[in-house]
């Protein structure tokens, strides 16, 4: 793959991957003397040399990737808020004395309109992260099978989350 790339694209991915890896090295090592830093530079260079063409960034899509990550910055706080709300819902459900009446486990099926495979995986993982719903099965055409614990969790799908993920992946 490396031979097909234009040199400029290769240098860009190489340096971005190197910077990300080196940042993580600094966080994990926590020592900033010349010895440890040079070890970090050497190992990051080695990894970049071997894998930078497809480790973190796939070169033809750099501009798309920037858009995607800026979208994630907006999406993730919203997702965390949804997770908190749904967690409280399930916590109340589990601790309530009349739990048997309130739960209604069921399997629901629907077709997602998201086309991008990474988008589908993001959507499936978001569904599983939100309590009350677990993704059972998913294929690349967007057919999803969800296990929901009660009627309220089931009614929330696909809903807002699908719209947000679709927007994130530009559909």
């Amino acid at each position, binding site marked *: 793959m490396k031979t097909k790339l234009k040199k400029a694209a290769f240098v860009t991915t190489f340096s971005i991957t190197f910077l990300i890896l080196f940042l993580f090295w600094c*966080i994990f090592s926590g020592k900033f003397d010349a010895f440890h830093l040079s070890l970090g530079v050497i190992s990051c260079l080695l990894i970049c040399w071997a894998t930078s063409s497809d480790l973190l960034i796939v070169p033809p899509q750099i501009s798309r990737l920037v858009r995607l990550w800026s979208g994630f910055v907006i999406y993730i706080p919203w997702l965390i808020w949804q997770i908190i709300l749904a967690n409280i819902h399930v916590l109340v459900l*589990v601790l309530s004395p009349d739990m*048997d009446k309130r*739960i209604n*486990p069921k399997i629901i099926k629907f077709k997602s309109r998201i086309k991008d495979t990474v988008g589908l995986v993001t959507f499936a993982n978001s569904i599983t992260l939100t*309590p009350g719903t*677990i*993704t059972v099965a998913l294929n690349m055409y967007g057919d999803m099978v969800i*296990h929901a614990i009660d009627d309220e969790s089931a009614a929330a799908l696909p809903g807002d989350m699908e719209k947000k993920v679709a927007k994130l992946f530009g559909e």
Partner: protein
Amino acid sequence: MIILTSLVSGIMILAGLVFFLGGSIGMIRLPDFYSRLHSAGMLDTMGLMLTMGGMALYIIHDLTLNNVLSALKIILIVVFIFITSPTATHAIVDAGIRAGMKPWRKRGSEAGK
């Protein structure tokens, strides 16, 4: 300042423990394999987020470089759990479906999927 951060992180850790407790109670009370996974996988994620957040907050009450690095590492633990936990839950559910286990249905609800 240290009183404030200790208080907030204490509250966060306690709230996280409530979620862990809820997850454990749900494991016992819920009727079948699939619905138990809801409480096992999901309430734990929330409990972890709160307890780890509380610890990260507590550790940066005096801002030295080492403490900030430790807090960053704690936050990274949460990030990795956030990516791996739903994937693991999905793998377990998938294994159950492939083994042919039928989900529990409430009596009187419409039959089938």
